[in-house]
């Protein structure tokens, strides 16, 4: 993709993400067990591990789609402490700082592509319709989908929908982005389009946490790799180093299983 | 109030008879209509579809009046009970055929293909592989339909079948000074009470099926 940097027109005010002593259970099942991790502003952290290891839950705790039982989450200057009642205002403030991209895109099917990207800006940032739609068009152009602006999401391929979802999140000028297996629902050749957009975003200096099975992406784009199993971080460090020489037996088994596919 | 309740409950067996008999007719009558809907001949499919839609397009009360007042062949005429059962039975056949069809429509195509690949004949495929599965998914809708049939059986009162609503009306008329709203209220309560077990049954089936699927 030779489009200009998708973020060149954005005010990129990146923030770090700090997670400390986070725990979460579903019923009697401990999904996250005292997790602490730190994401530098402008860095890319790849989160990998077998299914059920808690990586998606961890990601969803960052913007409080899941409510942690214990611990704190800090994004920029906004801290949420588990167990204390969260005011609606603080919750929305945190979510406005953090963009999220889902495995299943979750575009709003009853809105056109343009409205998908513009509507949240109007509601969340209070932009006028004209301003929001102009901005939406710019972003759609940057992800290469300006011509789809007036269609409905159902008319777009999975890869296109995911790029629209990224544009929708970016339109709110988040200071960090969460990606929950953004290419898992896509065919490999389509996933490439999405990964290309994510690469650009990373090189523009966006703080990103990416749950993924794309090892090549994690190695090339990731500044930091976190390996999870059974609700714990079992290993973390520089992606290429861990992939070349995992210290943990479970990391080694997981990596060889993923790479064999 | 006690008298009214007794009078209305005396109409209950007739309500249940009309409901059960017409449902039974529908259970059986729905099968040939279903086969027509699934026929290999396009004309048969379209004709049966039109017949079903036509039956469902005419309100029950019109069916009952048509059979009760309209049919006179020589000296033959339906009495009101038979007219009600036949009329609601015809309507049930159309609705149940549609419910059966819905059950088949939710079956994965792989089931049909697997049976074909195993070399099972058309009848075996339909009768032994597809129908049992389709019936299972159709059961909640069938229970829901039974409920609406129970309520539609009240329409039999308009051609003089002495079921619960007739009982309520007669009681109200005979006790104008004292009865008031009570008999109708009681009839409503009995219908409501009857609908609870079927509704609970349908809901339980529904959740059980959803878990099984």
């Amino acid at each position, binding site marked *: 993709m030779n489009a200009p940097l998708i973020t060149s027109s954005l005010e990129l005010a990146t923030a770090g993400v700090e997670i400390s002593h986070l725990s979460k259970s579903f019923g009697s099942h401990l999904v996250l067990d005292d997790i602490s991790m730190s994401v530098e502003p402008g860095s890319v952290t790849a989160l990998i591990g077998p299914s059920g290891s808690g990586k998606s839950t961890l990601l969803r705790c960052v913007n409080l789609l899941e409510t942690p039982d214990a611990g704190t989450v800090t994004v920029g200057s906004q801290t949420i402490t588990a167990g204390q009642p969260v005011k609606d205002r603080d919750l929305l403030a945190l979510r406005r700082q953090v963009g999220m991209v889902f495995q299943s895109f979750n575009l709003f099917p009853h809105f056109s592509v343009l409205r998908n990207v513009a509507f949240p800006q109007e509601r969340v940032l209070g932009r006028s319709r004209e301003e929001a739609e102009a901005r939406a068009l710019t972003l759609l152009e940057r992800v290469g989908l300006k011509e789809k602006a007036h269609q409905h999401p159902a008319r777009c391929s999975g890869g296109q929908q995911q790029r629209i979802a990224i544009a929708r999140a970016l339109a709110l000028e988040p200071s960090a982005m969460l990606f929950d297996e953004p290419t898992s629902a896509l065919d490999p050749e389509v996933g490439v389009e999405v990964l290309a957009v994510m690469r650009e975003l990373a090189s523009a200096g966006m703080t990103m946490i990416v749950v993924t099975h794309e090892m090549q992406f994690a190695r090339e784009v990731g500044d930091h790799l976190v390996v999870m199993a059974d609700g714990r971080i079992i290993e973390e460090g520089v992606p290429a180093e861990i992939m070349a020489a995992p210290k943990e037996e479970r990391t080694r088994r997981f990596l060889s299983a993923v790479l064999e596919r | 109030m006690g008298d009214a309740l007794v009078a209305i409950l005396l109409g209950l067996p007739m309500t249940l008879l009309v409901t059960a008999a017409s449902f039974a007719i529908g259970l059986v009558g729905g099968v040939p209509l279903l086969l027509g809907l699934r026929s290999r001949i396009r004309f048969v499919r379209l004709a049966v579809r039109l017949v079903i839609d036509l039956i469902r397009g005419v309100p029950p009360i019109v069916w009952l009046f*048509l059979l009760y007042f309209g049919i006179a062949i020589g000296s033959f005429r339906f009495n009101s009970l038979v007219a009600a059962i036949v009329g609601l039975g015809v309507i049930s056949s159309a609705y149940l055929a549609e419910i059966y069809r819905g059950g088949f429509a939710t079956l994965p195509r792989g089931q049909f293909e697997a049976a074909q690949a195993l070399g099972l004949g058309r009848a075996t495929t339909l009768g032994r592989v597809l129908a049992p599965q389709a019936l299972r998914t159709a059961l909640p809708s069938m229970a829901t339909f039974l409920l609406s049939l129970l309520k539609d059986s009240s329409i039999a009162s308009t051609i003089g079948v002495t079921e619960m609503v007739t009982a309520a009306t007669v009681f109200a008329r005979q006790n104008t000074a004292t009865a008031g709203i009570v008999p109708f209220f009681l009839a409503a309560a009995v219908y409501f009470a009857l609908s609870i077990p079927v509704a609970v049954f349908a809901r339980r089936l529904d959740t059980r099926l959803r878990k099984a699927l």
Partner: protein
Amino acid sequence: MSLVDYLPQLGRGLLLSLQLTALSVLFGYLIGLVLALGAASSKWWLKWPAIVVVEIGRGIPALVVLYLIYFGLPSVGILFESLVAATIGLTFTAAAYSSEMIRAGLQSVPRGQFEAAAALGLARRSTFLRVVLPQGLRSSIPALMGLAIMSFQATSLAYSISVPELMSQAYQVGNLTFQYLGVYAITGLIYAAIAVPATWLSVWVEHRLARGAA
């Protein structure tokens, strides 16, 4: 006189049946929406009354509802003209049934939609009004169309409380001409001529919605 001469009389009845349908569907669906929101509420004092009203409305035959209002209520001092009684009764039934359909539609909105709205920082109000409600109502359209057809057919019950709608007119014509078979056959066909194409339309709409077309 042949039956053809009575067609205008049947036509007048049909017109009233259609008016009765329009009123009961319009008011019924509005009340149904309110009941659906109530039944979906997390506050018990909104939830349970709504559920009770809905279950009563669905558990009692429409004919009994009409009798209750027209023959029953006068004894407690509430007197309605037959047309008003029929409108109220049929509205009540339509409200109860439609609320269940709207509730099912709202429930069919995928969880991902709520999550995406939450992740974007949309407030609860806009999430519900602009994201969930439009999609929920949209997916309940076929069921609501089907219910409108049922409501049209149910207007024939108003005959029993002497509203001069189509069925009442048919009854009168039958008594005048003694051609019961012909009169009720024609009447049945008139009902079907409206209900059957409407059913086909609702099936077509359902297919279109299922295909995800805009």
